[in-house]
């Protein structure tokens, strides 16, 4: 299945990815993505019937640790906020994301 990447789709992806893009970029990104996906589409020539997916290569499974507090590996509130652009009374300040137009 070949898929066309047009400006509308690029705008949609940008919204999903929370990446602000200009009107100009909509066109250049659409062309760029189409070029990249042309190479990716060649994978469809490979016979993958019945082939398992490889998500990881370590073979490790269900790696857990004891449910204990590791104080050596904890941030203080001050450390956690050290790189924030805005903090107030020891909390992160974020934009409102509910009930907005």
């Amino acid at each position: 299945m070949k898929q066309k990447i047009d400006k509308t789709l690029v705008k949609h992806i940008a919204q999903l990815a929370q990446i602000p893009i200009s009107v100009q970029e909509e066109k250049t990104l659409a062309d760029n993505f189409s070029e990249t996906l042309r190479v990716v589409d060649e994978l469809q020539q490979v016979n993958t019937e019945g082939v398992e997916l490889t998500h990881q290569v370590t073979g490790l499974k269900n790696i857990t640790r004891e449910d204990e507090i590791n104080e050596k590996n904890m941030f203080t509130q001050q450390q956690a906020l050290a790189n924030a652009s805005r903090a107030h009374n020891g909390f992160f300040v974020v934009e409102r994301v509910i009930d907005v137009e």
Partner: protein
Amino acid sequence: MLNKLTLKQTIDQLDNKKITLEDIWADVLNAIKNQNDKLNVYLALNKNFKPQLNKPLKGLPIAVKDNFCTKGLITTASSLLLKDFMPQFESTVTQKLKDAGGEIVGKTNMDAWAHGSSTETSQYGRTLNPRNLEHLPGGSSGGSAAAVAADMCIASLGSETAGSVRQPAAWCGVVGLKPTYGRTSRYGVVAMASSTDSPGPITKTVEDAAILLNHISGPDPLNATSTKKESPDFTQSLDKSIKNLKIGIIYHNLPGLEKIWELFEPQLEVFKKLGAQVELANAMDPKHAIGVYTVVQRSEVSSNLARFDDVRYQYGRDTFGNEAKKRIMLGTHTLSKGYADQYYNLAQQVRTLLIKDYEKLFKKYDVLISLTSPGFAKKIGASEGEAMFGELEDKLVEVSSLSGMPGISIPCYRDEKTNLYLGMNIMAPMWREDLVIQMADAFEKNTHWNSWRNND
């Protein structure tokens, strides 16, 4: 000129009290002062060091790629979003380096977020190749490779997702070792593609790479995908006979590589002279690795970079450069509902086939060897406007990255006119860095391509 010594030489000569640590640092800092404005290797410097002569790395100046979180030293991953990011914790690998007595002399330039193979996507300007200033150092660990090539450190650390240690090492004429995935911890490394990211040493000699790997590898409770096994002593693989080892040469008949192959093929003779069995072998077409890697990496990038915004950091997502924007967005697309089957799942299936192909070859051969990169270092500006520059430059190493297998790039040819190098990529099965080091060390010591064993 103590900055020109290898890690092994500095350790030995400090032990014998022939030289002092202060003099080594003075020469390294001097080399940085004289060259950094021109080469743009370091983004941050640390001139304070503690002599630690009782520890294995003595307090020697080691360069570290700027995607390792270093407490008290700004870590940008060459991005504007992290321009003022001061890590509040230390990456496991740099902590291990410090525990062994290594001192970070500076943080090296890279492709922004490690997205690229040229350093041209860095938001702080490109690094130049010290071997030839009209050319690129490769990437993404281009700054670390250039720091080594220009003797602006004694050794360095990089990280590889697919080619990011080996390709810049090849282009700068130095040694780059990508360990088995999980051998070195990813904790505290600004993530690119979590299923392949592997920190590794970039050094002057194979011996130096073995020494550094000894100190930075091993289990890490803070990284669930790290190995549960302790590392062997990798220096035990040096100075060993390679007699009767079986070598499969792959990617020897790719269209477009004919001219480079003519330069590369004669270099394989030395393995025969040393008693190894050398055969041409056939691997699956690496063009499929390009497709798989592109999808897997962009998908993982979109997920990993979702956490970066101006809530926890000082600058917002509008500061992402073109390459990061492209990768995040395409990865968002390949993972989104309705497209994941077509792209992501298909790529993970072909990944399985590529791994099985290598596993089959490793039933017959101890190591596989290819060129590291399809050519010499490209000229400045080469990556601009290319949709898939990195993927194409890294196609010969991508399968070993996608499969987690270890590999090393060592200098195996120098062009006299341009002073540029070709890299030889030696790969082995999972957890067999010992074979990779053994073979690379034998090549290095029986040829004259390594400039630290040759000129100095």
